[in-house]
């Protein structure tokens, strides 16, 4: 079971002080939060992708590339990478490069994005959002697995003889999670490919996303990737933790009450009616265990701990408590409750082992530049020698 944090990268005014971080401060602070998460032993740090204020992560691979250089063990991920407005070719290239630089400590969560104007800004139509996400991933999946791709779809200019470079680290594609909370087609795509399925598990009633998670589980089994119980489910959540539960409630309340979607709501109602946890480490542990009860065994739990204008010192403290007091207990508890046969979430190491066993991973070495990939089976030296390029006869 992996535990970590995910952030949308918002810059929100602190309602208790009126202070708004500059973009420069917020970027530096997000890096600090990621470093702290690594230091305290969390497994995953994920950052969103946004193209409008008050959010800073328009370029997640740049940010994560920097974080990769400053961290040791933590897996870097996204929450989410926009699979609608990004060119899947550029996604394939950028994240493969990041995967190399992070030495395999990378996976990707794909989503549609729900900010309406972003679509036209990038020349896309939000009404085609689901189809865009599905088609773009179908292409991405091939770009990471086939050296040379011929492809034609509805939304993107066709490709003939295209090679996405660099090839993924060890020729093993980054693991992909598909994020969705209401779209059965996305759950179906995750199931079809045997990829992970992640429900953000915030801002909605308890178990609201269970029907979709169950659909994914059953289709995962349908496509022969394993049993429904072995389907690779991830969940989000939001937590605010203090040693004493009344301190947690008292400190978090002004942030809750000032945040737009909660305006006029009672914190206590959200604490009981939704996955939001505000309380002592033990309360966060207890509530998180109810997620396992409700959704079945899952592989990844991410908490949102740095949004809503919380000062960076508080966010760092949250990461610290999570890493030192909450997650160690949750690891043990969830492990002891986990059904036999449900493995850990995939990592680069486990995917390499699955592909090569004890063998050496493939290390693609390109042939000399010939200007195109249109002839022959592969632009790499380990191409099948029995397949030769067929050139048309000269007239």
């Amino acid at each position: 079971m992996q535990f970590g944090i995910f952030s949308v990268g918002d810059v929100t005014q602190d309602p208790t002080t009126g202070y708004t971080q500059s973009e420069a401060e917020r970027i530096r602070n997000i890096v600090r939060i990621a470093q702290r998460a690594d230091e305290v032993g969390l497994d995953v740090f994920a950052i969103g992708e946004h193209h409008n204020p008050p959010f800073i992560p328009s370029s997640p691979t740049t940010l994560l590339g920097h974080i990769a250089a400053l961290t040791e063990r933590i897996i870097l991920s996204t929450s989410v990478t926009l699979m609608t407005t990004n060119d899947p070719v550029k996604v394939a290239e950028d994240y493969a490069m990041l995967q190399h630089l992070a030495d395999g400590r990378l996976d990707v969560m794909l989503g549609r994005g729900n900010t309406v104007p972003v679509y036209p800004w990038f020349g896309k139509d939000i009404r085609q959002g689901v189809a865009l996400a599905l088609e773009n991933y179908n292409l991405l999946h091939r770009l990471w697995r086939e050296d040379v791709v011929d492809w034609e779809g509805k939304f993107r200019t066709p490709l003939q003889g295209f090679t996405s470079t660099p090839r993924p680290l060890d020729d093993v594609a980054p693991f992909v999670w598909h994020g969705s909370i209401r779209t059965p087609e996305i759950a179906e795509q995750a199931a079809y490919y045997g990829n992970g399925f992640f429900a953000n598990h915030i801002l909605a009633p308890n178990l609201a996303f269970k029907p979709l998670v169950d659909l994914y589980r059953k289709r995962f089994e349908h496509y022969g990737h394993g049993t429904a119980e072995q389907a690779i489910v991830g969940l989000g959540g939001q937590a605010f933790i203090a040693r004493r539960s009344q301190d947690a409630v008292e400190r978090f309340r002004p942030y809750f009450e000032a945040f737009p979607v909660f305006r006029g709501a009672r914190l206590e109602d959200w604490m009981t009616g939704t996955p939001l946890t505000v309380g002592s480490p033990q309360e966060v542990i207890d509530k998180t265990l109810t997620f396992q009860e409700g959704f079945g065994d899952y592989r990844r739990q991410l908490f949102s701990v740095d949004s809503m204008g919380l000062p960076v010192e508080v966010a760092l403290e949250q990461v610290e408590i999570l890493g030192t007091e909450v997650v160690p207990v949750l690891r043990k508890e969830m492990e002891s409750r986990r059904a036999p046969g449900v493995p850990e979430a995939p990592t680069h190491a486990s995917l390499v082992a699955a592909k090569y066993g004890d063998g050496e991973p493939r290390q693609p070495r390109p042939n000399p530049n010939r200007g195109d990939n249109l002839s022959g089976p592969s632009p790499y030296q380990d191409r099948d020698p029995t397949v030769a390029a067929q050139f048309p006869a000269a007239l």
Partner: protein
Amino acid sequence: MSDVTIAVLTAGVSDPSSTRLLADRAAQRTADALGASDLSATFLSIDLSTVAVDIAQALVSGMPSRKVTAAIEDLAESDAIIASTPVYKAGISGLFKSFADLLDNDLLIAKPVILAATGGTSRHAMVVDEQLRPLFAFLRAIPMPTSLYAAPEDWGSPDLSDRISRAAGELAIFLRNGTGPQIAEQNWGRHRHQFGGTAAGAPQSVDDVDFSTDLMRLAAGGEREQGT
């Protein structure tokens, strides 16, 4: 167990409310008209004034409270609706519209509806047909031909009773014939539905989902689509 269930949806805010009174009279006449053909009716009363704050919060947060969810479930379970709103500032009540904004688009497909409104002056009589009727048309419900509107002077007029009887009679015919369920059943697959939605027939599990749609084929690698 009665033969039909009818939701009485009112947005009046005073107590007693003339908006509620108009809806209740329509309900009573509908019960009478159904009784004449030996059909019994259960009425589910949905008084929006009691969930006003919850409705506003659900709009802002996207998370309906238990009370709002219960009201929506009552609508989903009903075979017909009697909808009644006050007219404020030349329009239907914001509370009524806010509640309507929370409904799934497929919640009311082919459900027969009596449209009713009350106002301070007869000059607002067309609000029912110009605002309520298009709203329920958008929701693919079936508004009855006779709309009800009551200005202060109408409460002393037998014409209002006549119109109520006419609307109730129309609704009773629809309920007797089962026209709504027939339409809903025949066309259900042609409407777009929200997975896990609140409509009675909304897909809730893998068994309810059509995996043969273009989008589902695209989700599963798009092989069949690309092969064409």
